[in-house]
C-alpha cells in the first residue's frame, strides 16, 4: 500500500491540477486563447525551420520586394527573401533570447532576492542597493549601453536584457520570501531541524514560485520587445539572421514606399508572441491569486 499509494496519489494530484486548470480556462476564455496562442508560438519556434517553405537566407534578385501572393504569403523583402519563412524561423531566435534572458534574470534575481528577504541585514542592504542602482538607470538606455560596450551579439543582448530584469525578480522574491519568513510553516520546519538555508530553499522558495511565474511570463514579452528595440536602433542581432525586431526596423523604412508587408508581418508576429506571453501571465496571475481561488 505504501508502495503504490504515492504514485496513485500523484496521478490524482495531476488530475486534480488539470481539473483546476480546465476550470480556470473554461471560466476565462481569454486565458484559453492565450494558452493556445502560446502553444502556437512555441510550435513555430520548435518546428518553424522545418515548416518554412523557403530558405530564409536565400536572396533572389528577381523576386525582390514582391507583395504577398500565393507563392510568398507574406511577400518578399528587398533582397527577394521570403518574409513568411523569415518570420517563421525568427520565432526560434526571439524565443531563445527571451527565454534565456528571463531564465538568467530569474535565477540570479530570485536567488539574490530570496537571500535578502530571508536573512535580512547586510545581505538585504546590499541587494536592495544593487537593485536601486539598476532601477535608477533608464533601463532601456542601460541595455543599449551594455550592448554598445560589449558588442552586439545575441549573447550580449541576452546579458543586457537579463541584467535589467534582475531587480524585478530580486524585489519580488524578496517581498515574497519576506512575507513568508515568519509564517507558521517556516517555524515548524525550523523546529523540524531544517537549517536556515534549507528552510529557504526547500520550504519558502517553492512557495514563491507561482507569483514569480506570472512575472516570468510577463517578462518574456518584455524581453522580446527589448531585443527588438535594440535591433531597431541597430544594436541587435546580426544580419542575415531573421529576428522580428530587426525585420520591423528594416521594414519600417519601406512602409512609406508602400512595401508594408516587410514590417507588418514580423511586427504582427512579434505582437502575437508578446501578446500571448502577456495574456498568459495575466491569466496565470488570476490562477495564482488566492483571492480569486474561492
Amino acid at each position, binding site marked *: 500500500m505504501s508502495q503504490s499509494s504515492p504514485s496513485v496519489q500523484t496521478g490524482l494530484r495531476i488530475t486534480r491540477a488539470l481539473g483546476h486548470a480546465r476550470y480556470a480556462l473554461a471560466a476565462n476564455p481569454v486565458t484559453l486563447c492565450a494558452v493556445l496562442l502560446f502553444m502556437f508560438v512555441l510550435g513555430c519556434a520548435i518546428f518553424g525551420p522545418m515548416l518554412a517553405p523557403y530558405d530564409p537566407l536565400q536572396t533572389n534578385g528577381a523576386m525582390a520586394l514582391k507583395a504577398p501572393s500565393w507563392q510568398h504569403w507574406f511577400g518578399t523583402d528587398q533582397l527577394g527573401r521570403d518574409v513568411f519563412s523569415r518570420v517563421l524561423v525568427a520565432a526560434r531566435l526571439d524565443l531563445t533570447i527571451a527565454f534565456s534572458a528571463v531564465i538568467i534574470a530569474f535565477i540570479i534575481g530570485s536567488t539574490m532576492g530570496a537571500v535578502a528577504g530571508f536573512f535580512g541585514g547586510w545581505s538585504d542592504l546590499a541587494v536592495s542597493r544593487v537593485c536601486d542602482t539598476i532601477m535608477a538607470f*533608464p533601463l532601456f538606455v*542601460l541595455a*543599449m549601453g551594455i550592448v554598445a560596450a560589449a558588442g552586439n551579439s545575441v549573447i550580449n543582448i541576452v546579458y543586457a536584457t537579463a541584467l535589467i530584469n534582475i531587480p524585478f525578480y530580486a524585489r519580488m522574491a524578496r517581498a515574497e520570501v519576506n512575507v513568508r519568513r515568519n509564517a507558521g510553516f517556516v517555524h515548524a520546519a525550523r523546529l523540524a531541524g531544517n537549517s536556515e538555508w534549507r528552510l529557504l530553499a526547500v520550504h519558502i522558495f517553492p512557495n514563491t514560485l507561482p507569483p514569480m511565474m506570472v512575472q516570468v511570463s510577463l517578462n518574456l514579452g518584455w524581453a522580446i520587445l527589448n531585443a527588438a528595440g535594440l535591433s*531597431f536602433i541597430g544594436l541587435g542581432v546580426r544580419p542575415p539572421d531573421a529576428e522580428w525586431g530587426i525585420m520591423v526596423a528594416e521594414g519600417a523604412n519601406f512602409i512609406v514606399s508602400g512595401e508594408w508587408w516587410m514590417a507588418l508581418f514580423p511586427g504582427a508576429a512579434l505582437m502575437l508572441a508578446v*501578446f500571448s506571453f502577456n495574456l498568459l501571465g495575466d491569466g496565470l496571475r488570476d490562477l495564482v491569486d488566492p483571492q480569486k481561488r474561492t
Partner: protein
Amino acid sequence: MALGVKSRLILSRLAQALPALAGIVVVTFILTRALPGDPAAYFAGPAADARSIAQIREQLGLDRPLPVQFLSYVTDLLQGDLGRSISTGQPVAEALMQRLPASLELTLFALLLSALIAIPLGVAAARRPDSWVDQACRLLVTAGVSLPTFFTGLLLVYVFYFILGWAPPPLGRLDLIYLSPPQVTGFFTIDALLDRDFATFRAALAQLVLPAMTLALFTLAPIARMTRASMIQALGSEFIRTARASGLSERRIVYTYAFRNAMLPVVTTLGMVFSFMLGANVLVEKVFAWPGIGSFAVEALVVSDYAAVQGFVLAMAVLFVLLNLLIDVVYTLADPRVGMEG
C-alpha cells in the same frame, strides 16, 4: 509630531537614494569607458592622421589613467559641472536643460492620456470582474503593451500623417511653420497658453498627440491592471461591506470609499510607469524626431560621448529619485497610515 514623522520618512528616503546615485556615477563611468570606439579618432575628423588623433586625445584628457579621469569627473560633478559634450561642444547640463522639458512634456502628456483611459477602464473592469467589459479591457491593454513602441509609432505616422493627412508631420515639438513660444516652463503647450498664442498651442498639441498616443498605448496595461486589481481588492474589503450595510450610495461606495483606497497603489504604479516611459522614450523620440533627452542619449552613445552619456544617466537617476520622493509625498499625504505603523 505627525508631520515630523512623515518629513523624517521622506528625508530618509532621500538618504536611501544617495548610495544608488553614487553607484550610478561609478557604473556609468565604467560603462562609458568600456564603450568601443575612440572619441579622439571620431573627433579628429575624416582625414586625420595618428598624430592629430593623439593631439585631440590629449585635449580631451583621455590620455590620463582612468582613476585620474574618474577623480576629475567626480570633482567637476561635485561642483555641479556635468562636463561638456564633446560632440556638440555644449555644456551637458545646458543641453539637458534644453531637452528635458521636451521629454517631460511628452511623457507627462502621455501619462495623463494613459491614466485618463486606463483608470476608468480598470475601474469598469473591477466592478464586473470576468464580464465581457473586463475581458475586453484586458485584451485591449494587453494588445497595447504587446506592440513595440517604434512599430506603433511608425504605423500611426503612416496612417494618420502619410495616408490620411490628419496629423502634422512627425517633426518634433512644433510644425515647421511655428516658432517656439517664449520659454517659461519649457513646455510648449503651457508656454503658448501663457503667451495667449492659441495657434501655437494648437500646433504644439497636435505634435504631441501621436507620440503621446504611442507611449500611452504601451502604458495602459500596467495602470489599468493595477487599478483593476486594487479596485477589486478594495471593493472586496470589509469596510466596503460595512459601507454597503450602512446603505451608502453606490457612487459614494465606489468612488469615495473604494476608489480612494485603490488609488494608493495606483499612484506608485503611475510613478513607475513615468520613469519607465522616460527611458522608453528613446525609441519614440527617434521615430517622431522629438528633441528630447532620449534621442540625445542615443546620439551620445553612438559617438561615445562620455560626458553626455554620463550626464544623461545621472539626470535620469536624479529625476528618478525626485519622482520617488514625489510619490512618497503624495502617498504620505493620501494615506494617514504611512509612517505611523510599526
